[in-house]
C-alpha cells in the first residue's frame, strides 16, 4: 500500500508541480495515475520512490515513511522509470546481477528468477550483450526484469507501455495483473486514456498538480458527464497518441 498525505512540491522558479495531494493506493488492485503531459505524474512518482523530497506532506510505502526510513522503504519498491536508457555499458546479465546485489536477493533465488524472467520475456539470447546494443523495447524489458528480481511488494511504473511491441505489452499487462492478484500493490502512470481504461481497477486523475478524481473506471464515466473541465482535459488525453 502507498499513502500520500498533503504532499506538495514546488520547483525552483515557482512551478507548483504537485499541490497538496492526498492519495491511497491499496494493494490487490491495478492503480492507474492518469494525466496529460506536465500534469505532475512523474514528480509524484519521484517523491514516492525517494528521488525527490516533498516540500511538505508525508509519504508511506507499506506503512514505512520514506523520509524517515528511506532504505527500508526503497526495498519495498520495484521502480521502472520512463526512460529505459540506463546502464547501457553493462551487459544484460551484469545489470541483473547488479540489481540482485543492490536489493539483497539470495543467490539461489536469483538464479531461478533470472532464468524464469528470461524465458518469459524471451531475453535469454541477448543477456551476454551490452544493453547499448538493445532496441528500445528490449531495454524496457531488461529494466523491468531487473526491477522484478527482488520480488517487490510495491511495483511502480512510469509510462511503462511506451515503446513496447504488442506482444511485450500484452505480457506486461498479464504480469501486472498477476502481481496484484497475489495481494501486492501496483501503481503506474500513463497519459493514454485507452491504456488506463483497459487495465486499471482504479484510477486517479491529476492535472496541474491537483488530483481531480479518484475512483473506478465506471465511476469515472459517470463523473465525466457531469464535469465540463474534466471532459475538456480528457479530450486532450484521447487526442494524444
Amino acid at each position: 500500500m502507498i499513502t500520500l498525505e498533503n504532499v506538495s512540491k514546488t520547483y525552483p522558479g515557482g512551478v507548483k508541480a504537485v499541490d497538496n495531494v492526498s492519495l491511497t493506493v491499496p494493494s490487490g488492485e491495478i492503480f492507474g495515475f492518469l494525466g496529460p503531459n506536465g500534469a505532475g505524474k512523474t514528480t509524484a512518482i519521484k517523491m514516492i520512490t525517494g528521488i525527490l523530497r516533498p516540500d511538505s506532506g508525508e509519504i508511506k510505502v507499506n506503512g514505512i515513511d520514506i523520509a524517515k526510513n528511506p532504505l527500508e522503504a526503497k526495498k519495498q519498491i520495484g521502480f521502472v522509470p520512463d526512460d529505459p536508457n540506463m546502464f547501457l555499458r553493462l551487459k544484460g546479465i551484469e545489470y541483473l546481477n547488479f540489481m540482485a546485489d543492490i536489493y539483497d536477493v539470495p543467490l539461489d533465488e536469483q538464479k531461478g528468477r533470472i532464468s524464469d524472467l528470461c524465458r518469459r520475456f524471451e531475453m535469454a539470447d541477448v543477456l551476454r550483450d551490452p544493453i547499448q546494443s538493445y532496441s528500445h523495447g528490449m531495454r524496457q524489458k531488461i529494466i523491468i526484469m531487473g526491477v522484478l528480481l527482488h520480488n517487490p511488494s510495491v511495483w511502480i511504473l512510469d509510462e511503462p507501455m511506451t515503446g513496447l511491441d504488442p506482444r511485450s505489452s500484452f505480457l506486461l499487462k498479464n504480469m501486472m495483473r498477476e502481481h496484484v492478484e497475489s495481494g501486492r500493490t501496483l501503481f503506474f502512470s500513463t497519459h493514454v486514456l485507452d491504456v488506463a481504461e483497459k487495465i486499471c481497477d482504479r484510477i486517479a486523475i491529476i492535472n496541474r498538480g491537483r488530483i481531480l478524481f479518484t475512483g473506478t473506471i465506471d465511476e469515472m464515466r459517470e463523473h465525466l458527464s457531469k464535469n465540463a473541465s474534466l471532459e475538456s482535459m480528457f479530450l486532450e488525453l484521447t487526442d494524444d497518441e
Partner: protein
Amino acid sequence: MNNKTWILTRAMLKNGGGLGLNLKSKWSWVLLLLILFVSLPIMLYGYVEITAFFYNSLAAIGQEGVLLSWGLVISAMMVFVFGVFHVVSNFYFANDIENYLPMPVRPRQIVGAKFLQILLYEYIAVGFSFLPMLVYFGVRQGVSALYYLYGLAVLIFLPILPLALASLLVMLIMRMVNLTRYRELLRIIGGSLAVFLALGFSFVMQRFNELTPEELGELLQSGSNSLALMETKLFPTVRWAVQALLRYEIAAGLTNLLVFIGLSVLVFAALLLISELVYIKGVIGISESGSRRHKIREGEFGRLVKRRTALTACLSNEIKLLVRTPVYFINCVLPGFIWPVFFTVSFIFASDRSSTVMLERLSGALNDPNTMGKALGIILALVAFLGGANGIAATAISREGQQLYIKRYIPVSYRKQLAAKLLSGVVIGYTSVILVLVVLTAVLKAPLYFAGIVLILSFLPLLLTSMGGLLFDLINPKLEWDSEQKAVKQNVNVFFSILFSVVIAIAVIAVSFAFDLSLAWALVVLPALLLAGCAGFYYLLSTYGVSTFKNLEG
C-alpha cells in the same frame, strides 16, 4: 571561414554547458575561492621563481631570449599533448556527432567547429603556461606596448599548429582503425593507440632536437639570443613567433609576426582540406554496438549469476563504466598508464650522457639510507599527483549526469555509494602505482622492501586526493550534459583536483626535505600527515558530503 562552421561552433559551445562552474550555495563559493587563493598563488610563485632563475642564468650569457623560445615550445607541446586527448574525445567519441552527421554540412565544417571549440580550451592552458613568462620577460626587458600587442597575437595563433598536428594524427589513425572488421574491439584500443602514437611521435621528434657540444659552443659564442631559435625544430612556426617578439621594435618583427600568423592559418586550412577526405570514414559507425546473440543455456546461469555485497556491486559498476566508456577510458584511465610508461621509455632509450648520469643518481638516491626518506616523500608526492590528475573522483558525481536519479531510488545508503565512488579512484590510481613500482624496481633498481613500502603507503595519497576530488565534485557537479566528454573534459573540478593534488604533493615533499627525513622517520611522519588529511576529509565527506549528495537533484 564559412558561415556554417560558425553556426556549428556556436551550437556546440552553447550545448557544452561551459566548464561546469555553476555554484549555487554560498559555501561552495567560499571553499572554491579558498582553493584558488591558496593553491594558485603557490603555483604562480613557484613559476615566477623558476622563470627568474632561468632568466638570470641565461641573461648572464646574453641568451635570455631562449626563455621565450622555451616558453613557446613548452606551451606548444602542452597544447599538442592535451590536444590529442581533446581531439579523440571530441572528434570521435562525443555523442553530439551523430546529431550533425545527418545535417547538410561538410565534414570540414564539423571538424572546423570542433577544432575551434577545443581551441578555446587550449587558450586557458596557454594562458597558464606562456602568459606569465611573456609578461615576466617584458617587465625585465622594459619593453613598449607594442611587445605586448605582438605577444597577444602570438598567444592567439600559437595553439593552432600543435592542435592541427594532433588533429591530423588522430584523424589518420582513427581512419585506419575504422577500416578493419574488428573495429568494435579496436575502438577503445584505437583511441588509446592514437594517444600513444601521437605522444610517441612528439617524443621521437624531440630526440632529433639535440645539439652536439660543439654546435652548442659555436652558438654560445655568437651571443645575443642566437640560441633562441634552436629549440623550435619540433614546431617550426614557433621560430617566427620568437623572432617577432625579440625584434618587435624593427620592421623584421612585424614581418615575422605576419609569417607566423599566415603559416598558422595555412596549416588550419590544410587540416580542413584533409578532413574532407578522412574524417567521415573514420567517424561513421563509431557508436555502433554489436551483439553476439549467444543463447544462454539453463545450466549456464549458475556460472553467470554472482552474489556480491552492495558496496562491491557499486564499485564494480563504477569501474566497468570507466573502462568501457571510451571517453572515460582515454581521459581518466589511460593517462595513469601513459606517464609512467613515457618516463621509463625516455630513460631507457636516452643515449646521451646526461640521462645516464641522472639515472645513476636517482638509482643511488633510492639505495642510500641518507636519501631514502626523501625519495619516499617524492614518490608519494608523485602518486598523489597521479591520483588527483586522473580526475576519476573529481568527476564521479558529474559522470552520473541525468541518471543521478538512479542513485536516489536504489536502497543503498548514500555513504556507501560515495565510498564506492571514492574506491574507484583509488583502485584505478593503483594501476599507475603498479607501473611506478615497475619503474622503481626494474629501471631504478630500488630495493624490494622499498617498493613494498611504496605499494602499501600509496593507498594514503590516493585516498586523500580522491577524497578532495570527490568533495569538489559534490560541491559543484556538472550534471547537465548530453555527451560524456563534457562530464570529464569540460569540467572545472578536474582542474581543482589537480591543484589540490599539487598542494598535497608540495606539502609532502616540503616536509620530507625540511626535516631531512630518514626512511624510519619518513615511515612515521608521512603516513601520519596523510592520515590526518584523510581523517579531515572523511569528516567533511561523511557530514557535508553525504547531506549534499542527498540533496542533489539531477
